[in-house]
């Protein structure tokens, strides 16, 4: 059993949240951690450390809405190149974003010139309302990076979207080429990462390799 106030469980929570943001986030949905309720750690010989977490999450766009979930995060022993294995189960329903997603999709598809933006939020924390969906999609992309690159000795957060460029495609997906700044809490470094995100209102998001 682990005290939720201490950092090992909180680092595992960040991984679980990153994974969930990648899987379930979108231009109309961002999730953040309200509270870590319970945490357990299991040391598995020759495999690694497995964390069992009970989380309460809140919807970024509707702070009054919370949802509970359980997560398992397995950090592999010694392996620096292998991402943690994560499983997340959401209890209950996440608010539907179908309408907002479709609206966003139609708006981007209707643009004559490909969307370009930088510094989201700006130095003073401002995000222009029309760019909020782009910001939330950056969270989706960052969620992937955070999940793939975390260890028990790191804790990543998206610090800022440095640059984003939409790339028009011949298929139905939207493509955004991001340069995001990720803040790593333990080393305190803020470093740029390039990531390309594909998104479709029905099919969801995926990071393009």
């Amino acid at each position: 059993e682990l005290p939720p106030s201490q950092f090992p469980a909180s680092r595992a929570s960040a991984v679980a949240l990153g994974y969930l943001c990648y899987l379930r986030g979108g231009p109309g949905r961002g999730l953040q951690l309200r509270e870590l309720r319970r945490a357990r750690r299991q040391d598995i010989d020759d495999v690694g450390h497995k964390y069992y977490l009970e989380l309460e999450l809140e919807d970024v766009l509707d702070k009054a809405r919370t949802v509970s979930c359980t997560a398992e995060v397995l950090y592999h022993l010694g392996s620096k190149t292998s991402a943690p294995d994560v499983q997340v189960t959401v209890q209950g329903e996440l608010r539907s974003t179908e309408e907002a997603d479709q609206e966003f999709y139609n708006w981007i598809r209707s643009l004559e010139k490909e969307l370009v933006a930088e510094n989201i939020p700006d130095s003073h924390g401002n995000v222009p309302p029309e760019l909020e969906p782009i910001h939330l999609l950056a969270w989706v992309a960052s969620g992937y990076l955070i999940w793939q690159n975390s260890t028990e000795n790191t804790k990543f957060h998206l610090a800022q979207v440095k640059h984003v460029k939409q790339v028009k495609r011949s298929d139905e997906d939207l493509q955004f080429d991001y340069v995001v700044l990720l803040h790593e809490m333990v080393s305190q470094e803020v470093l740029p990462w390039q990531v390309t995100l594909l998104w479709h209102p029905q099919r969801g998001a995926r990071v393009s390799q």
Partner: protein
Amino acid sequence: LQVDLWQPSSPFHIVEGAVADARVPQNTTRSLLPFLQQENIQYTVLISDLQQAIENQTGGRSHRNRRSLSGYNYEVYHSLEEIEDWMYYLNRTYSDLVHMFSVGKSYEGRPLYVLKLGKRSRPYKKAVWIDCGIHAREWIGPAFCQWFVKEALQTYQTDPDMRKMLTQLYFYIMPVFNVDGYHFSWTHDRFWRKTRSKNMRFHCHGVDANRNWKVKWCDEGASLHPCDDTYCGPFPESEPEVKAVAHFLRKHRKQIKAYLSFHAYAQMLLYPYSYKYATIPNFNCVESAAYNAVNALQSAYGVRYRYGPASSTLYVSSGSSMDWAYKNGIPYAFAFELRDTGHFGFLLPEMLIKPTCTETMLAVKNITLHLLKKCH
């Protein structure tokens, strides 16, 4: 009828077929436009309200330079110059409660200003030290220090707790500890953390001002590499900012009973040790102070802070100001990590300054009043 000609540079260049741009006062348009129509001169209104356009450009910060306590906008981030002007203003205007002085100079030669707050009610008073902005990019820190001063001066007459605090104690407030770094985060790199000292061998600048103190210096949780963000420096107190404040705190160690340092972000209230996993001797007093402070903070908007020893709550780090202050005999040494928990991180929006500062005030007042009740 007089116009302010913006284009071309002189009336001599106005010829038939050329374009001219002019600014006129609002009321003049009533006579100018009919005249142009009459003379068959084509015109377009490019900007209908210049004042509004300028205000939109500078955002809601057009009042930030106004010299008055109520005129100063505490809900926006201020540049170093603005903060210094503000301190000068308070020093002149509230001389019975505020005394501004400098503890030294930064690497780049800037003064290191501190405000001493409190009623000169008796010859010897205990004191609380508060610093903000040890790390340049943590802008909510200096914003809170300014807020604290504002609250002290504005509510000293009406709030019995604040009156008690300022009568029985002095508060040393250092709104911006890392002045060079803070300035750099405004002009060059919003995510700069360290000081701006130059390194002899590498092309990297700066030392982590919270790894440079003489307490288990450069052990775990700090880096010996000058390019790293947790670089401990070539030796303890190598940074003039650290050295100056350490000198001041050493000199006043008998007087100062609490050390509070404000950082961001994580939503935590931390106490020693950072450099090791061990319980401090006065754990009971400090832990109960932290527990009460965090509850007081939560009572404002329901925001939850975690609390505990820094080493187990956040991470192990060595050479921190909090550990040094504690080792130096200050019984209550705390480090706050203010809002949020990562959604905005360092880029906390200005509209969250007020709630963050409001709830944090409750915690700070709580700790101060706990301190006055003598459990050391």
